[in-house]
């Protein structure tokens, strides 16, 4: 597949807990093309979070290969991985993970700070991204002054601000009520419609319905790859 954005080959992750070796991820090979909207599902302990961490370059596989945008990520060092996370991947977490006592604008700017973007440009880009998620008016509010849905929108703006090739959302609606969940998923769907590749980890079938492809995990193995 020439336009595969990311590609894993025989990806294995083994955790050592005491004397026991736990195969959290067992021989996973998958390809995701540009512009796809993929849901990753499975019960807890199925390996979906591990898969997510490997896709997000937060962790390294025990064996196997991972290519992101044609780059062999599985061979990169710590600082190079940090750069890949910074440039190519936007994270959205279940608990938002915004910096407390820091304005929405500065939260969105954070990845640009590490990318070495000048202050003026950071402000402009962050402000623009907040407007895109519908929070242009709330740029100077702190997380504690925002609702859960608004906080998640700030987090999405932060994920988008470096113009990554991939959005990774780990249970993005897990801490939200169902109506807000729909809004957030609609926003992700909207982003996908404009060409962004989105991967969402979830255990809620409703959420998975927004995706066009569902990867199912069980006991560390990829057991299903189909439309919802």
């Amino acid at each position: 597949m020439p336009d595969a954005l990311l590609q894993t080959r025989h990806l294995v992750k083994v955790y050592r807990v005491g004397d026991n070796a736990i195969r959290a991820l067992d021989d996973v090979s998958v390809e995701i093309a540009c512009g796809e909207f993929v849901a990753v599902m499975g019960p807890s302990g199925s390996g979906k979070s591990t898969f997510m961490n490997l896709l997000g370059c937060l962790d390294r596989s025990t064996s196997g290969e991972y290519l992101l945008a044609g780059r062999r990520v599985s061979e990169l060092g710590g600082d190079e991985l940090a750069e890949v996370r910074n440039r190519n991947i936007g994270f959205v977490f279940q608990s938002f993970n915004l910096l407390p006592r820091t304005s929405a604008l500065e939260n969105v700017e954070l990845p640009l700070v590490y990318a070495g973007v000048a202050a003026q440009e950071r402000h402009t880009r962050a402000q623009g991204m907040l407007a895109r998620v519908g929070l242009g008016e709330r740029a100077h509010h702190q997380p504690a002054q925002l609702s859960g849905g608004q906080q998640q929108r700030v987090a999405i703006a932060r994920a988008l601000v470096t113009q990554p090739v991939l959005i990774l959302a780990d249970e993005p609606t897990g801490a939200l009520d169902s109506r807000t969940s729909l809004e957030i998923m609609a926003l992700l769907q909207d982003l996908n419609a404009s060409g962004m590749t989105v991967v969402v980890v979830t255990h809620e079938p409703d959420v998975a319905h927004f995706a066009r492809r569902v990867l199912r995990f069980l006991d560390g193995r990829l057991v299903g790859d189909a439309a919802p």
Partner: protein
Amino acid sequence: MKLGALLRIALRSLATNKLRSALTMLGIIIGVAAVIVMIAVGQGAQARVAEQIRALGSNLLLILSGARTQGGVRLSVGSTYTITEDDAYAINREIPEAVAAPALRGGAQVIWGNSNWATQIYGTTPEYLEVREWPLADGRAFEPAEMSGAGKVCIVGQTVVKQLFGGADPLGQVIRIKRVPFTVVGVLSTKGQSMMGTDQDDIIIVPIGTARNRVLGRANIAAQRSVSVIWVKAAEGYDTKRVEDEVRALLRQRHRLQQGADDDFSLRNLADIMAAQEASSRVLALLLAAVASVSLVVGGIGIMNIMLVSVTERTREIGLRMAVGARTRDILGQFLVEAVTLSLIGGLVGVLLGVGASVGIANVAGWNIVLSGRSILLAVAFAVVTGVFFGFYPARKAARLNPVEALRYE
């Protein structure tokens, strides 16, 4: 990541926990202030000793009547009169690189007009001023005729000018020392306190012959020309030690002491005593600074403690920063800058406190202090080094966190 950005993050984080930051800084503040005060006090003591050495005049020898054994009883130094005026004149005559001034000491009530004052009377020769390197502020020294003829003239010290004359010009005035009228012909310049803390300016100098016959004459002085002390100065450029040996040899010869017999006089090299005192004050200053720097190290441990707590508390934040692209050195830098900011602010506050306390001590206790820019710089630099040293371990701990675990940390 630029230093300015790191500094902003550090300041914000410190501002979030103001009380905690302030308490953490307290260790450094006290440490830096203690170092500055101790160095100021130590250097002040050293400067005072150095000042006293200068005031006393270096290369000074002091000859006192010595311990003498009388019928098996050993008498203490100064209890008998074994040195005489003539010893002093002999030194002047025979040892060209030494200047000697004999002196008779005593106290007396002095009267001028309505006022009176108890002061020290010093019967000596004009050489005394040269030996003590003690110039006149006004008037003149004794003339040869006044020395030989027991002239009733005197030179007064600054304290006497203040106490007896109330600041009026004493030149030409007649004062009464033990009912004997003396004309003031000279005024000494200010000498300050002696090594022992006595006021050296509280003095009236009269010709030695006049002192013996008119003021301090005592019936029980065995030898008519004996004196209490002879001051000897080694001339500029001569080894005091060598002069001391020559003086000792001369006096032993004059006193007809047998080979192996004890000296019947006591010869003291003041520069040696002073040098010893200076050395001990330097050791004291060093000791004080060392003790003070211990408190700085304790402050540094406080910083490390709080930084470790901070890293644990902010594990999720660290995880997030890593997820959005912070490199190891960014996280390391962030926490290191935070620790150094703590210690630097603490150091600067400590400087203010230390300088304030030093000035306070100088004013309240009247101690001599020396505040030097170098010691302040040293204390601040030491504080920053402490911050780097004790901040490094927590910062490295933060930078080495695994992003996956950090993000999941509860």
